[in-house]
């Protein structure tokens, strides 16, 4: 089993969309998949056409089992919902019998093939707990200076957690809202690759379909299976970037 966390303290960079799209693609490909929503906004459920709920609080605060609190969202895809009750979970971490590793222990005992954790755009105790529960961190980022500053912050937090003994297998940076024709996108992508090299994944092109899909409670695969954000931009006789290409990269990691 592999656990991926989607993190960037900057909001609006595509964490939830990325987590949902990749989780659904893994489920379609036959992997038993769990998507955990650590964000009190509870948007994972809404994007999948379900109601937000206190799944995370019931698991961590009311000692219910994971099987009891997950909701089936699609074939092979379960979700652990969040809502404003997730704020209460943060207070639990001050209790003596509660540690930042609790989520890790609960998830690592499950029987899923792959788990995705959608993190809130913050640097609080729940965020740390999500990072500590993960094997691999995906950092979605827009190609602008502020979002890339968020990448730097997450990298520093991960370095600190590594020093404290948490063994991350690694991390990847996923450029989102990519526009091939703007100079700023080019300069920021160039800078990202200069600093992070092979950690930079093929980018996700800017695509209006991505904004439309949640309004219908559908994933991108259901709403616009041939859209640019999924299949990538045209480059001569092939496509570059897109969620399907990123999925193949992650699948290689899961199958390792």
């Amino acid at each position, binding site marked *: 089993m592999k656990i991926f966390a989607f993190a960037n303290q900057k909001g609006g960079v595509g964490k939830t969309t990325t987590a949902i799209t990749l989780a659904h693609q893994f489920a379609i490909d036959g992997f038993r998949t769990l998507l955990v929503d650590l964000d009190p906004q509870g948007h994972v459920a809404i994007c999948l056409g379900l109601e937000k709920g206190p799944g995370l609080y019931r698991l961590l605060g009311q000692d219910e089992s994971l099987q009891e609190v997950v909701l089936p969202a699609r074939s092979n895809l379960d979700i652990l919902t969040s809502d404003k009750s997730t704020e209460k979970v943060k207070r639990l971490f001050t209790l003596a019998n509660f540690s930042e590793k609790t989520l890790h222990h609960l998830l690592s005992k499950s029987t899923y093939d792959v788990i995705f954790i959608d993190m809130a755009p913050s640097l609080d105790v729940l965020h740390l707990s999500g990072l500590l529960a993960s094997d691999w961190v995906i950092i979605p980022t827009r190609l602008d200076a502020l979002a890339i500053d968020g990448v730097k912050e997450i990298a520093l937090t991960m370095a600190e957690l590594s020093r404290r003994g948490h063994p991350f297998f690694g991390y990847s940076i996923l450029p989102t809202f990519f526009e*091939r*024709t703007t*100079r700023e*996108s*080019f300069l920021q*992508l*160039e800078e990202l*690759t*200069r600093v992070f*090299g*092979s950690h*930079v*994944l*093929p*980018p996700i092109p800017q695509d209006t379909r991505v904004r439309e899909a949640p309004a219908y409670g559908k994933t991108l695969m259901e709403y616009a299976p041939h859209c640019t954000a999924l299949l990538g931009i045209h*480059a*001569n*006789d092939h496509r*570059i*970037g897109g969620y399907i*290409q990123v999925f193949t*990269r992650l699948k290689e990691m899961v199958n390792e």
Partner: protein
Amino acid sequence: MNKKELERRKVLDPTVAELLAGMEQRQAEAQMPVRTRQKKARERAKIQSRKEARATYDLPPVIRSAIRELAAQHNLPISQLVSLALIRFLNDYSSEKIALGPYKHPSHSPKYDWVLDLSGELKKMEKEGTIS
């Protein structure tokens, strides 16, 4: 001892590297005068349109050189000469003037069921002086 200044090259995801190279080229072109930019765009479009027409096949060297010589003799593009030869062959094949049966031999390759034995045809050409 003088230490050489070495810089380790970062290995990029191949897709990201390809994308960056393309964008770099476009950014460089954006700085060029309008006429040069238009010329570059035309060249790119020409290369792109020719891609559909390109094919790579293995040919016996004697055939290759015979075609080249014939093209030079008539001052023609080799591609057009080869196209003419293939058009004639396909017409003859569809009107059953030529059959593949006599040339077919079982293949040892797992990829194909049959291969064509062209040695007889090549010998005949040599005898008739079509190739040297």
